[in-house]
């Protein structure tokens, strides 16, 4: 079906024609996300109600048109890419509802609400919405839910799925259903809420969510620990956690990351150290005051050469500044950043670091490693130039080997970025043929015509990782 025919069919569904985009400049503007590849949709629609979405899905089913839901397209795995053309459903403008109910301790939101805005609204009542991916000032809650995003606070507070208790979902066949509800406890039937969360927009389109809020911690303490030996820093992490203290954040930066940040903006970081930990505790001021001294002692016992506890809010911000500068610092020499999120069990962190070091040398790539060490969710970032085809091929091989290493160590392909297009080729490696087949059967029963976000999660036969455009 050509674009004009499609537009004619959509016009009776979408109340305002301005929300149907057909210009070429518009189509190219919805052809990418924060990962790789440019895929042109045939049309872009900006729905504003579950009914509109349901009607679009019915239409798409009738004519077998692929539909690609999209939030703000901050995805690092290709989640919203319209790889088979068709309709992009831009849900980012549908942000009207953001209601906080302090008695039930929930927030009810439209899919286009910005994630950080939910936290801000919750704060007014003394609550927080814990999921804090680094994109939270941009990303919509719909996207965050679809990808089941994590973030630094995941260590203590868990990830997005732990805060969703109810959803309104439009199924691929155009039915509007409700899953879960407004209660923390709910065991009525299968837990479809958790199935939809993290399904990357392949099973349904989230049109409303009921989210759990959490009491705001009264205070925080921040410290930094510097290690000459990265293996020691790994020991420190496991020892802190086994000592009965659960930090709200526990971040690591390796030597190449420290050096990149220091070269970008001299902060006086220890460029000769192999690793740096940034640790944040939250809770009752008296309790964390005592706990931070214990964490300090653990770090010293495990071989930290320097430990620094922030005495003021400004000092804490200064310590976090190093972590914040990682992004601009690492793309100074070359522009392309391949951000991975392979995750391993906590005890395997030192081993994973060793494997990453070998991969860096074997493929002669620029690899820096930082991330959420407390939950084993590392971010090996490869810095390259996507115009250099030869380099990109080495990068592709290195990425493949990073995935293998994570799985061999008992970990997973993706801790928080999702599978999308990029990691689909490796699904069977982690899940096995039968495991992947069970997932596929779920997809087939929800979406018999395979029209909702097709081309994601499940690999085509012979599909390989491709990081160059085309």
């Amino acid at each position, binding site marked *: 079906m050509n674009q004009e025919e499609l537009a004619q069919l959509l016009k009776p569904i979408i109340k305002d024609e301005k929300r149907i985009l057909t210009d*070429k*400049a518009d189509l*190219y503007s919805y052809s990418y996300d924060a990962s790789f590849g440019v895929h042109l949709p045939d049309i872009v629609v900006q729905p504003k109600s579950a009914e509109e979405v349901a009607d679009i899905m019915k239409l798409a089913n009738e004519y077998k048109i692929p539909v690609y839901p999209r939030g703000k397209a901050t995805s690092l795995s290709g989640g919203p890419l319209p790889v088979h053309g068709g309709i992009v459903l831009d849900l980012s403008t549908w942000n009207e509802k953001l209601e906080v109910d302090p008695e039930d301790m929930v927030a009810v939101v439209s899919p286009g609400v910005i994630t950080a805005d939910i936290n801000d609204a919750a704060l007014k009542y003394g609550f927080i919405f814990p999921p804090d991916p680094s994109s939270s000032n941009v990303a919509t809650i719909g996207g965050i839910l679809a990808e089941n995003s994590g973030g630094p606070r995941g260590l203590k507070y868990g990830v997005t799925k732990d805060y969703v208790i109810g959803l309104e979902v439009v199924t691929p066949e155009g039915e509007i259903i409700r899953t879960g509800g407004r209660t923390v406890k709910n065991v009525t039937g299968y837990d479809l809420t958790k199935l939809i969360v993290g399904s990357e927009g392949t099973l349904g389109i989230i049109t409303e969510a009921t989210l759990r809020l959490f009491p705001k911690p009264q205070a925080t303490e921040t410290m930094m620990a510097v290690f000459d030996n990265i293996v020691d820093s790994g020991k420190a992490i496991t020892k802190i956690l086994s000592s009965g203290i659960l930090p709200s954040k526990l971040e690591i930066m390796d030597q190449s990351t420290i050096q990149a940040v220091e070269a970008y903006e001299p902060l006086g970081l220890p460029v000769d150290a192999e690793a740096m930990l940034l640790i944040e505790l939250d809770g009752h001021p008296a309790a964390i005051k005592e706990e931070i001294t214990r964490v300090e002692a653990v770090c010293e016992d495990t071989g930290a050469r320097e430990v620094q506890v922030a005495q003021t809010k400004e000092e804490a911000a200064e310590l976090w500044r190093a972590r914040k500068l990682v992004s601009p610092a690492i793309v100074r020499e070359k522009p392309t950043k391949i951000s991975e999120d392979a995750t391993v069990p906590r005890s395997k962190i030192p081993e994973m670091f060793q494997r990453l070091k070998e991969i860096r040398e074997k493929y002669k790539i620029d690899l820096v490693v930082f991330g959420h060490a407390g939950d084993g969710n590392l971010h090996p970032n490869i810095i390259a130039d996507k115009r250099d085809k030869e380099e990109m091929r080495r990068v592709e091989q290195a990425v493949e080997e990073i995935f293998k290493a994570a799985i061999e160590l008992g970990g997973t392909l993706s801790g928080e970025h999702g599978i999308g297009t990029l990691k689909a080729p490796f699904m069977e490696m982690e899940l096995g043929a039968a495991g992947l087949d069970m997932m596929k059967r779920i997809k087939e029963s929800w979406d018999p015509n395979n029209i909702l976000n097709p081309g994601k999660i499940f690999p085509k036969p012979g599909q390989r990782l491709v990081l160059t455009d085309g």
Partner: protein
Amino acid sequence: MAELAYEATFDCVQCGYCLPACPTYLTMGKETHSPRGRINLVKMAAEGKITYDELEGPINLCLGCRACEVVCPTNVQYGKILDSAKEVIQQYKKETKKITKRAKLFQEFVFDRAIPNRKVLSTAASGLALYQKTGLQTVARKTKAINILPENLRTFEKVLPKVERKKRENHYPAKLKPKFRIGFFTGCIMDTMFYDINTKSIRLLQEAGCDVTIIKEQTCCGALQNHSGETEITKRLAKENIQAFEKEDFDYVVNSIGGCGAQLVEYDKLLADEPEWADRAKRFAEKNVDISVILSQLELPYEKEVNRVVTYQPSCHLSNVQKRVNEPLELLKSIPGITYVELPDKNMCCGSAGIYNIVNYDASMEILDEKMKHVEKVNPDTIVTSNPGCHLQMKVGVEREGLAEKISVVHLVELLAEASGIE
């Protein structure tokens, strides 16, 4: 031959962190009108996937406020990409005659001859003054003769400041040993419409202990031309200004115009490819500062309280390009008697953006309406600005909301002068 800044587009990793900072993305709700979208479209145009005609709309609707550059985690040079697109589009339109001969002549006249020309502008100003003084303005308004103007121009006619021009000296010596020797950059539109603010700026600098000279040979900064893709005209004006101010050994070149100042501090980038000019441009750019930078280092002779509740709408070009965020604000707060209330989302552009509010009137008014919602939240009696464009735009905003009786719009310099007893 103009070229799109294709290589610079690769610095964008498409993370989307610029989206919340972009006023047009906020009001239009389309990726096409976001910084990430525009950078991608420039790349697509360079690769031949879209035409210059398809690129033009999204580029023209960019305010050029450059708020995206400040929040970009990978330091993408958005200004460079935008300017290249404007230049290429302008050139393409001339070559393909997409721009009518009359429009071309008119643009060339305005950008090349009228704005940079003191005589033309001063004639225009006299006309304006005459129009206002003779009561013609009142007559035109009362008889609705004004309605023959299109809505966009009519809107601005309402808020034009009272134009009065008293003769000004060329040299304002410091009373004691001067703290700084300053060359004052008057700007062209500023010196026409807001002549009085320039005079007050000069007097404030003098009172604060500076020796101030007004170089006659200075000309227009070239910002409006540059924003319209007329890079060659901008370069020529830049060279004239550099030459003019090189005549004397100034510590600083000072202006009270956020937008012009932004162009002046980027002369080094503008002329980077011309070996005989690059160093001179760099020296000139480094000497250029906003008046708030100098005044905040000196002591002002405050003699009376200014009892007003003020909010501050920063000039985007002062904050995002000149990177002067604290100086004007600290200066404002230092005025005796002032009560400062912070404007929510104050870093969002007001929609003025050079001549954007005239050529993209509807888009500009949507942004302004957002801005005015924020103003009403803090309920000030005065809005302080630091650029003539923002000044007029905020006056339009106040007028549109029917708040003209309640809220006045002033330049920071006017409040400082009031507190210092400078008439």
